[in-house]
């Protein structure tokens, strides 16, 4: 009967079983702890001071009615947040309970939008989110990152730097080749920072045209340009109180650089096509595989913005520079992939591991992951041997494998690898539509 301290506790009092069932399922999906009662007697039996955070209470109950039960509950636990559930016909009665300390009332049937915002506002006010649970998740994340990045002294040093900088509000620039896991590192920093309760929002600066970039960063008002049918919040606004992760920062155009610099300096901006000033508070993390100093020297990247972004610099080494980590990373990936594909593969043969540790991995951990994923698909033994790995160059394919189908399959896989499994981008590159691409992925059993 102890209060579950890790969760928000919600009690639902309603005589209709379908109402109790439906609301319980709805709240459980938010990870709340839910209890229910069919009448006042059962409710009072389950009610203790401090046990529940929010009570949903039907006005009309058999026996003692909702208003009376509400009054009793408030006597027992004056801090309890109560929300009355009422039919339109009884709204007057519900309003009276507000004078008796009810937080709000809602009419049946309940609008789910309204319900979720009502509850999240209450929780925010009560700050009920538990440290414990968040901590557990963060530790999980940390384990995952260790496995992903490796545990050589080089990587340990990097993770130490991450732990040092994460709790501060310092802007971080993460450098490293593509596929080294810069985005995961950004997420790790965010999840170890005081901003972890707010979102981390990624803006991929590569492939943003100047017009697109503006609305992506700052949002737009309805009708700001052709196709602006909704008012849309920009990502800086969505990231309020959280972290903005600017991937491929070297790719942003000069106008966006200027707009971004201003937004960083003033912490405010206006949406495209609007006048309203939006105030924001966010931490900046950016990533790049370009030589930013050279870009500054050549005048393609603003020096003032560069200094704003590059307060603290982290370098993720390419996989070939910490080969000693390959067995750890490969085994971690294998365990994960073989379980998810329902295969019982326990390890790599010596030959296969040699192959993995000696390759250059220009696509780094991402390429390693994709290769292992394909090997797991192909492998029908307990141990992955070197012949489970498919070579990447068409010229390496033996003559009998040069059928159009084989080459198509391989080419699509390569494109998918390059786009990180993004179907839309891959379809564009291949100049086929998404449906056809999905069809081919299924046909060839490819990995995204």
């Amino acid at each position, binding site marked *: 009967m102890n209060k579950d301290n890790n969760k928000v506790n919600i009690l639902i009092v309603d005589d209709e079983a379908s109402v109790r069932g439906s609301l319980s399922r709805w709240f*459980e*999906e938010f990870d709340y702890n839910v209890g229910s009662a069919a009448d006042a007697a059962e409710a009072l039996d389950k009610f203790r001071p401090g046990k529940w955070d929010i009570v949903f209470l039907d006005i009309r109950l058999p026996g003692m009615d909702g208003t009376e039960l509400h009054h009793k509950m408030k006597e027992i636990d004056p801090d309890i947040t109560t929300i009355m559930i009422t039919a339109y016909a009884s709204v007057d009665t519900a309003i009276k309970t507000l004078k008796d300390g009810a937080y709000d009332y809602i009419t049946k049937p309940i*609008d*789910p*939008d309204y319900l979720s915002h009502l509850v999240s506002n209450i929780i925010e006010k009560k700050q009920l989110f538990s440290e414990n649970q968040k901590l557990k*998740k963060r530790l*999980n994340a940390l*384990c995952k990152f260790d496995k992903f990045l490796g545990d050589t002294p080089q990587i340990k040093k990097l993770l130490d730097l991450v732990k040092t900088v994460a709790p501060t509000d310092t802007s971080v620039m993460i450098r490293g080749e593509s596929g080294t896991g810069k985005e995961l590192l950004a997420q790790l920093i965010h999840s170890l920072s005081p901003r972890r309760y707010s979102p981390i929002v990624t803006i991929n600066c590569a492939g943003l045209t100047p017009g697109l970039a503006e609305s992506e960063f700052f949002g737009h008002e309805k009708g700001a340009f052709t196709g602006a049918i909704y008012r849309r919040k920009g990502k800086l606004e*969505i990231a309020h109180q959280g972290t903005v992760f600017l991937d491929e920062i070297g790719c942003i155009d000069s106008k966006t650089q200027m707009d971004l610099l201003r937004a960083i300096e003033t912490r405010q901006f206006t949406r495209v096509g609007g006048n309203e000033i939006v105030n924001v508070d966010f931490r900046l993390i950016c990533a790049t595989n370009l030589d930013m100093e050279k870009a500054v020297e050549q005048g393609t990247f603003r020096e003032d913005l560069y200094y704003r972004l590059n307060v603290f610099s982290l370098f993720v080494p390419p996989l070939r520079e910490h080969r000693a980590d390959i067995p750890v990373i490969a085994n971690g990936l294998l365990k994960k992939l073989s379980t998810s594909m329902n295969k019982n593969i326990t390890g790599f043969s010596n030959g296969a591991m040699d192959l993995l540790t000696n390759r250059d991995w220009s696509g780094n951990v991402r390429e390693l992951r994709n290769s292992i994923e394909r090997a797991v698909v192909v492998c029908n033994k307990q141990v992955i041997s070197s012949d489970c790995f498919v070579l990447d160059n068409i010229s390496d394919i033996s003559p009998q494998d040069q059928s159009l189908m084989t080459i198509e399959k391989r080419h699509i896989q390569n494109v998918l690898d390059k786009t990180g499994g993004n179907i839309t981008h891959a379809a564009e590159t291949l100049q086929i539509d998404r449906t056809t691409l999905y069809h081919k992925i299924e046909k060839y059993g490819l990995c995204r």
Partner: protein
Amino acid sequence: MPIASRVNIVPLDFDDDELLGNMSSSISQAFQIPTRIVPMDIRLDMGRNRQRDQLNSTWVLSQLLSQSLNNSDKILGITVHDLYTPILTYLFGEAELGGRAAVVSTYRFRDELYGLPANKDNLEKRIEKEAVHELGHTFGLVHCLNFDCVMHASTYIEEFDYKTNSFCPLCVSLLDERTNT
């Protein structure tokens, strides 16, 4: 929790085969398990509320369960009808948390509902996300604070369009944990 061996997709008054095919490959990608389309004989008029012109999603879940006896299969119903429960005005979908059955509806994902021209691509992206989201619940995943994550609870269509159709690293690790035990 047993590892699911398959997701059975059950069309309920749903005849867009192309969309079903795409959705089925998305699901199979997201959970790394096979999917198949399994028609079932469910008389939807029994679960319809004529006054509200909606389909009772809890009723659908119970029908799906009563007709699917293989305990290691997940079952996903997909319908064009607007879903409701007696206490909630509408639902994009519903699932048994940590259970087997889920149902999703395309009804609220049509741009026509918001006074815009029909857009199949938008509809498809949204229903794919919703299907992965509800199935995520059947694997025991709860809502996620990460706006990009498919397990984010999106109540507005804009937020829905913002999130991706995949799991964030935290949810991936939780999903791993769930499917590994």
